[in-house]
């Protein structure tokens, strides 16, 4: 009997939950709203309605997004037959928290408001204790290695960039390991695309700030399909990159993204296109009946939705023109 049947209940739950995701028309109404308050009001007819009353002002909208993120992950963890599947997606919060705590402890940047509560797999107190005692034994292996390396480096020189670099690499290494165990080709491909698009972005950034090849090598993640080091030299013009990737699946993202980057000098367009590419891939999960894919699809859809609301609200609060917000908006899952 196929083991995918164990997902029968979870998929039923998720499909019903999917109907409550914000659709294109609600997003459009938010974008067209005259003020931030009005944009927020559109959410009154959605899952977010329950939080709206608790918000003192529109500036607290992040609080609403935090609540929703927590609610979704706690709910999914309860219904997923394989809890590892959800842990895979909540790993990033552990790494994010560790970064914040590391920076707070070693560099004195106290930013407790950035910590993500409850959603991660490792309690915040444990992370804080590990960093202050420099005892990382209880952390997962990849995280532990990276943290030990970091605190060694920090004894000589405190480099905040190194925190991000080492921990990001450890995170993707760990996620790659977890995916092998979950044995889902849908998930595997998703992360390969994610890493490739991230690596291309890293290349563009590093090229811009004129760092040496060694730095790029350190910043690139070795878990994708495209080997940037072999593909293109840092000294070569951007057209070479576009040419070389012309026949890859990322062709549209690269061509338009790099063009916009050369014109405007920002990666906003590239980031939007990369996200759209990933959401388009995730949409395949809508047509699969049983298995982990619909749950993964829902997670990605929800994270995308939170991102959309954030883009709109930040835009509205800063009184950006509607057109400009629209340009930044990603595609929706539903």
């Amino acid at each position, binding site marked *: *009997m196929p083991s995918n*049947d164990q997902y*029968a*209940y*979870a*998929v*039923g*739950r*998720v*499909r*019903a*939950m*999917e*109907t409550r995701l914000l659709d294109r028309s609600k997003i459009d109404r938010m974008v067209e709203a005259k003020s931030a308050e009005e944009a927020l009001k559109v959410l009154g007819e959605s899952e977010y309605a329950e939080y709206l009353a608790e918000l003192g002002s529109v500036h607290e909208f992040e609080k609403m997004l935090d609540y929703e993120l927590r609610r979704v992950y706690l709910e999914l963890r309860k*219904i997923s037959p394989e809890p590892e599947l959800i842990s895979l997606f909540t790993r990033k919060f552990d790494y994010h928290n560790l970064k914040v705590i590391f920076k707070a402890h070693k560099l004195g940047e106290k930013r407790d408001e950035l910590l993500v509560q409850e959603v991660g797999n490792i309690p915040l107190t444990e992370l804080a204790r590990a960093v202050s005692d420099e005892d990382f034994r209880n952390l997962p292996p990849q995280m532990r290695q990276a943290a030990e390396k970091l605190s060694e480096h920090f004894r000589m020189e405190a480099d905040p960039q190194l925190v991000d670099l080492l921990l990001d690499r450890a995170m993707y290494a760990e996620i790659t390991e977890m995916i092998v165990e979950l044995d889902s080709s849908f998930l595997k491909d998703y992360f390969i695309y994610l890493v490739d698009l991230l690596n291309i972005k890293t290349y563009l950034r590093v090229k811009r700030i004129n760092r040496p090849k060694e730095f790029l090598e350190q910043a690139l993640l070795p878990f994708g399909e495209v080997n940037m080091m072999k593909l293109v030299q840092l000294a070569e013009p951007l057209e070479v990159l576009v040419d070389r990737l012309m026949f890859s699946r990322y062709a549209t993202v690269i061509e338009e993204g790099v063009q916009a980057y050369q014109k405007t000098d920002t990666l906003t367009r590239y980031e939007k296109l990369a996200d759209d590419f990933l959401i388009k891939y995730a949409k395949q999960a809508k047509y699969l*009946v*049983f298995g982990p894919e619909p749950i993964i699809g829902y997670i990605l859809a929800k994270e995308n939705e939170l991102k959309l609301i954030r883009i709109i609200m930040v835009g509205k609060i800063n009184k950006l023109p509607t057109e400009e917000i629209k340009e930044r908006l990603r595609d929706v899952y539903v």
Partner: protein
Amino acid sequence: MEFTIGLAAAIMGAALAVGLACAGSAIGIGIVGQTAAGVVSEDPDKFGPTLLLQSLPGTQGIYGLLIGFLILQRTGVLGGNIVEMTVHQGFAVLFAALPIAIVGLFSAIAQGKAAAAGVLLIAKRPEELGKGIIYAVMVETYAVLALLMSIMILFNIQF
């Protein structure tokens, strides 16, 4: 009443027809039930339509029971006047049971999956219940064909 190998084979046929077809229906209904429970926990109004879809893989079990019942009747186990039969005749009755036993088992599971997909369909589009049912009922065709063959074999065995 005297038990012969032929009679034992015929009874085995009845047991297989009921046992396998009902097992298939149970698995099929179980799959739909799980999916339906998932949907209903988010949207309790969907109980009625999901129950309708859940009942679809149940027919294979009924077909199996029908064949089992007919075998017992034809061999006279029901009623006590056991028909005299050779080993060959007994096995022929056993083989008559196989179409519905095998097809009942697998088609009920397949139908369960199609019906579960139908449940997912109405989770999103409640107005499309009819289409969801049709997709699941298409599987029924093959259970009916198997039932037909089981009946035809059974009634053409001369004792």
